[in-house]
């Protein structure tokens, strides 16, 4: 019965199905972005929004005639598009980091905001704000750099503690992550209280929101997410090997320890970039890889790009809800993601009850 299909054909069929899933997700992402750009206080018809965006693209731009008003163009290009793109990048980054952490810890409950990496980034950024550290390094600001370092140190601490005895226990990882998150958050609060005048800024930033979305922010985050995404795709095969355990992965020719540190660094760069522009937004990194895994299977060569796309979709939708639900006022987007994400987290905990004990 199996004999009728060769191995190659079987693998090719599996690959085609997964590529199809990714293509559908990608198409969905484009539609969601265009819809998100069209929606808002002033509705710009979807077709018009799409044509305005296309007109700004190289080559394709010549194909559309400008039949829209300058106001519409300003709203789309200067206000909405950067914000939507920023949401897209932040969502991609958080979901990518979630996929990486879940792979590294072989733990479906890992997420940047649960294991403390987001809070580490937040503390790093807050320190930069608080002490007014202000130097640029190309597109990288001091805030972003400090966020990278904070994210990395937090993961480092959690990993080293949770590894005691050579094995990472799920319950222990969550507890250590939770404790460290709270600890770091308390330092952030302390700095906020001490910094009266600048407190306002920090507070709003930390609430988690994309209201500051500007082209500058988009251009600051884009390289980090792009590099993170590319590196993760390159190393996707090694993440698969690590699923067999550190020891077995080494026996199959992977320098497991070194690889783990590379991926921690990648995840930290991505989380640091996301947190430095959007504050702490939870649950995107937890939910997205899970849902994508149901569609593509556990293979990281598909799971990583799938999480990038899926995180983008999730975040763009969440941010659009955040700014339209109670218009003209805005909800912090963290509220929207937590509203959907927290029940999902509890569902996972219940489903994996046995594995967690």
């Amino acid at each position, binding site marked *: 019965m199996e004999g009728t299909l060769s*191995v190659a054909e*079987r693998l090719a069929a599996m690959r085609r199905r997964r590529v199809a899933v990714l293509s559908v997700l990608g198409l969905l992402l484009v539609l969601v972005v265009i819809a998100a750009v069209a929606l808002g206080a002033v509705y710009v018809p979807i077709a018009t929004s799409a044509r305005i965006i296309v007109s700004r693209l190289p080559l394709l731009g010549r194909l559309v005639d400008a039949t829209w008003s300058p106001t519409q163009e300003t709203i789309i290009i200067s206000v909405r598009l950067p914000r939507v793109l920023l949401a897209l990048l932040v969502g991609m980054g958080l979901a990518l980091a979630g996929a990486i952490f879940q792979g590294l810890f072989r733990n479906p409950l890992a997420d940047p905001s649960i294991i403390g990496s987001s809070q580490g980034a937040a503390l790093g950024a807050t320190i930069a704000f608080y002490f007014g550290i202000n130097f640029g390094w190309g597109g990288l600001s001091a805030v972003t750099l400090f966020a990278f370092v904070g994210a990395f140190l937090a993961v480092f601490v959690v990993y080293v503690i949770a590894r*005691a005895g050579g094995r990472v226990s799920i319950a222990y990882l969550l507890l250590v992550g939770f404790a460290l998150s709270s600890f770091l958050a308390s330092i952030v609060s302390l700095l906020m209280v001490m910094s009266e005048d600048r407190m306002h800024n920090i507070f709003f930033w930390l609430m988690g929101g994309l209201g500051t979305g500007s082209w500058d922010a988009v251009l600051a985050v884009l390289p980090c997410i792009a590099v993170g995404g590319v590196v993760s795709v390159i190393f996707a095969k090694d993440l698969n090997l690590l699923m*067999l355990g550190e*020891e077995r992965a*080494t*026996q*199959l020719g992977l320098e497991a320890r070194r690889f783990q540190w590379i991926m921690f660094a990648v995840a930290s760069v991505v989380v640091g970039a996301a947190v430095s522009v959007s504050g702490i937004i939870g649950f995107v990194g937890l939910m997205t890889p899970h849902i994508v895994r149901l569609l593509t*299977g*556990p293979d990281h060569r598909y799971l990583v790009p799938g999480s990038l796309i899926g995180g983008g979709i999730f975040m763009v939708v969440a941010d659009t809800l955040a700014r339209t639900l109670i218009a003209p006022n805005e909800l912090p987007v963290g509220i929207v993601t937590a509203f959907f994400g927290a029940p999902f987290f509890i569902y996972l905990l219940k489903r994996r009850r046995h594995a967690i004990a």
Partner: protein
Amino acid sequence: MEWKTLQAKDVHVAYYGEDVVSGINLKVSSGDFIGIVGPNGSGKTSFLRALSRTLRPREGLILLGEMDLYTMPVRQVARALAMVPQDNPISFGFTALEVVLMGRNPHLGRLQGVGPYDLEMARNAMEKANVWHLADRPVNELSGGERQRVIIAQALAQDTGLLLMDEPTQHLDINHQLTLLEMLSGMCASGQAVVMVVHDLNLASQYCGQLIVIRRGREFARGTPAEVLTSAVLQEVFGVGSIVTRHAVTERPHVIFLPAGNGDLEHPGPRVHLICGGASGASLMRELLERGCYVTAGVLNLGDGDEEVGRALEIRMAVESPFSHISEEAHLANLELIREAEVVVVSDLHVGSGNLVNLEAALQALTWGKRVYMFSPRPIAERDHTEGGAAALYRRLLREGARETADREELLGEVVGERRESG
């Protein structure tokens, strides 16, 4: 297949400073089929892990060709030798074929996908291990024996000259055992080599060209099955009486075990339950095992130094999650082990509120009429983190008949001598 020889020179392997392998030598060349046998806790698995570049020896050298195995890049090692570990829980839903294809990793570039040749190798490996019909099944849904064969196929797909296997037959039925060993001897006949830890002495006898008997981390005997498998050796190493005959067909030695006269003959000493923690019990575990005791331990937290050593020595333990207070459940499991023991030894462990209940278990042992020894090179006062609670329990233990000593030899002498007096 860049494979010449694998040599272990005076290899010592230690967990938390306790040697579980002390000075084993081995040379594996093309065509060898070597079986490593020995009782539980003798260090077989640790030695094999050292050979596979998984567990760095504390001392000694392992050479692959002329190169030090532990300075070679892991990819290069993985092209020369493949390891089949004892059990490998895979929790994510990769299919059997995907798992086996991972065995091709050392031969592939980072961005290189699997090609037709890799697929052919994977299919061959899966047919040899008789799992080809499971190719599309998620491995986490397979039975223990099927998963074991998938891991064997993964190692075969590595296409290495040398295979290291830790009890590859353990989850397999007799048909699959024979098929596997038949295939392995075929591979050795065609110039590959296999080193295998194996419990079934008759299977080892039928298929291995050379056997190494390990006892207490040291080589006890080595040679062909006919040279090694004698009643005298089996009596000495396993403490089991046996008759060794010749297999009617293969003429190889065939071992028939005699029923034990008075219970557990592998362990002529008394059954001892060790209450320890931190790394306070590790050396006692070994010393008691070496004196022929059957040793159990508890309650230990997973990942604790003593728990790691106990696991390496394959002793039965009552365990608790890492860094947690001892639960009712673990305590009851501990009492169960104590009930089966003759003697209870309390190491010089540190006592806090989390493990105070272990001392109550010792008290319970006294009420059951067990002999209880406290080994206290340092007085309990220095190890009591319960504001006197532990010290009070020690005093009560002494009142109710437990003995306390600071002298290791005296302790071991009394524990082991115990059965001789009463028996």
